[in-house]
């Protein structure tokens, strides 16, 4: 970029305040967005003694995921909280969308706040030297919702689900006997209301925040994908800060992602109850159902393993985390 002038370094006059723009794509009620506000922003501003100011932009006001990713790579945005839109260039990031990777959400938290995350941070920086990953937070565990009866694996047959335009997601729906429809997110509500599609898959956080429960009757808590959200920063910006400032930011990001996981896990029961109170029939996915689904989506899994030589080792490593 032209004139991405280095921000104030530690020994400069404290009068010069560094401003960090943080962009995410979530409403401020999302656990990750809350953690950015309540932990990251708060800690950085307090611990830096006001030498760093954090401006947070939720709901994609700074840009969608690809824009934020481009922005953080070229330095226009200092910090981006995004999913894995870079997974075509660095396929290891597909791990975020890997179906049925964890025993439960606690397991996912352990993985993404532990050594595996640290290791991937290093690989990520090797692949994209202009960036650092500062932390891995929860997106949320995806569930299926529908207007038609959806309480068992057999119910998928013949239903139309809006799925993200991504071969993994589409593959899952199709393997389960449903048809996958690609509909843009801002037409999803109307499409569910009028019946263009019967259902969709998203975390309960989204079902609640996007008010999809207003137009959906059933929710099947499959937790088929527990995707992550990464806190990514621009390397040039980070390196321009003093050691102390860098440490403050790193610690704050780490604390924010841990807090987000904790809050997210705590919110699951509350979100479920909220949906039930609003007339949604919520069905938990039993271990037998889960095994049956995994069996059905084997073609998608096989394809994923065949296309990604790194996968077997990493998946085993993740599954071994206790």
């Amino acid at each position, binding site marked *: *970029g*032209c*004139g*991405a*002038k280095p*921000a104030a370094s530690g020994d400069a006059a404290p009068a010069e305040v560094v*401003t960090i*723009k943080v962009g995410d794509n979530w*409403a*401020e*009620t999302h656990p990750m967005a809350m953690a950015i506000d309540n932990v990251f922003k708060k800690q950085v501003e307090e611990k830096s003694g006001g030498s760093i100011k954090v*401006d947070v*932009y*939720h*709901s*994609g*006001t*700074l*840009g*969608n995921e*690809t*824009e934020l990713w*481009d*922005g953080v790579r*070229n*330095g*226009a*945005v*200092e910090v981006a909280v995004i999913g894995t839109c870079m997974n075509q260039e660095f396929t290891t990031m597909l791990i975020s969308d890997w179906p049925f990777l964890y025993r439960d959400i606690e397991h996912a938290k352990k993985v993404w706040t532990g050594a595996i995350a640290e290791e991937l941070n290093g690989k990520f920086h090797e692949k994209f030297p202009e960036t650092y990953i500062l932390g891995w937070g929860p997106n949320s565990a995806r569930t299926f919702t529908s207007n038609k009866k959806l309480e068992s694996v057999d119910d998928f047959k013949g239903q139309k689900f809006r799925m993200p335009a991504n071969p993994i997601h589409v593959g899952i729906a199709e393997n389960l006997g449903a048809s996958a429809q690609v*509909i*843009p997110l*801002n*037409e999803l*509500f*109307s*499409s569910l*209301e*009028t*019946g*263009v599609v019967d259902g969709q898959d998203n975390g309960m956080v989204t079902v609640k*925040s*996007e*008010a999809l429960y*207003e137009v959906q009757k059933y929710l099947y808590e499959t937790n088929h994908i527990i995707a992550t959200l990464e806190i990514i920063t*621009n390397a040039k*910006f980070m390196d321009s800060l003093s050691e102390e400032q860098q440490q403050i930011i790193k610690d704050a990001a780490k604390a924010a992602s841990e807090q987000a996981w904790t809050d997210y896990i705590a919110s699951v029961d509350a979100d479920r109850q909220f949906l039930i109170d609003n007339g949604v029939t919520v069905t938990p996915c039993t271990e037998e159902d889960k095994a049956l689904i995994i069996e059905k989506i084997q073609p998608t899994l096989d394809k994923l393993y065949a296309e990604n030589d790194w996968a077997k080792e990493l998946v085993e490593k993740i599954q071994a985390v206790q």
Partner: protein
Amino acid sequence: MILTLTMFLLFLVGGIALGLPIAIALIFCGICTALYLGGSNANVQIIATKLMSGTDSVTMMALPFFVMAGELMNRGGLTKRIINFCNIFVGRVKGGLGYVTILACLMFASLVGSAVASTAALGAILIPMMAKSGYDRAKAAGLVASANIVAPIMPPSIPMIVYGVSAGVSIKSLFMGGIFPAIYFTVIMCGVWFFVCRKDGVKSNEPRLSFKETLKVFLSGLWALLLPVIILVGLRGGIFTATEAGVVAVVYALFVGIVVYRELTLKDLFTSFISAAKMSAVVMFLAAAANVAAYLMTVSRIPQAITESLSGLTSHPILLMTILMTIIIVMGTCVDVVPTILIMTPIMLPLITAAGIDKVYFGIVFTLANVLGLTSPPVGPVLNVACATGKIRMEEIIKPVIPYYLFQMALVYLFILFPGLITVPLGWLGG
């Protein structure tokens, strides 16, 4: 802060006055603001990224689709027959087609949630139709632009969904709350049109048609008249989305124009494709350029600063609402609706809650104030679509739009003074 704002507006208005294409003026003021803000904001890649993402929009595809459908309807003889049919009923009323336009917009509004989609759909048909019947083209385009603002007020509404999601308000309640305002809106539109067309409104002097002739006109127009019915049924019945409705209209118009009326030639078809594509490109390029300016507006944090300075007003809800809505109306001149809602909702909501204002009521007034920006230059997406589909220049459409704009603005302030206009009928509807 004030300096940034002044500069932003100065370069924008200056650039437009100079005669730069408005899209270029928007990027120009964006770049100047970026250079002024400095730091990581002065990054030329932002222009490229924002311009690109501004054109990468599935929902905006409704634009080329409906424009194409309109072209085919005009060239394939569908429009002509719909005019003849409408004229049976309103031909002898002064400005009759204008009222048809206003009602058609309300009807279409109950199907689609985006004013751009509905203007593309109706503008491409109604503006040439009114012009062919002898109405002034600019006035027709102005009416069509203004009347289509009702699309996001009458449910379904994309802006209300965006507000509902970011404010955590029931979307169905918002939808219920929009019905009566949409009706007030329509009544006001008819009232203004009554005065606008008094001077030179077209009125047919042809003798009243006999029953037999009427039947003939109706039968010959039957195929054309089926098009709105198909769209209505398809959208309500969950067969296709609002964007897809445009394509269904294209295919149907193609079928009727070629097979039934046999008026559409291969040459017409190619001309329609090129013309629809060019028109859409012009509107989309402007929308994409506005995306660049909106980004710089966002990172300058001007809206935050202004709103935060109003926190002392929470004990005066009416005054607070008046100022907030005025900010929205002003912001609406140069930022598009969805970005404005996303930027402003989280910063206004604490004030609204503190002042004890109902969030559903606020959402309705907020949506109306926002959509006013759709017909105000320089970033007036609906205005741009109306210009493109009506084949008139930007300057020509501004004057005819003003009277509607003023009355629509008055409606916003009326809602602020008398919240009961919204809340009472909302109670009846159980929202």
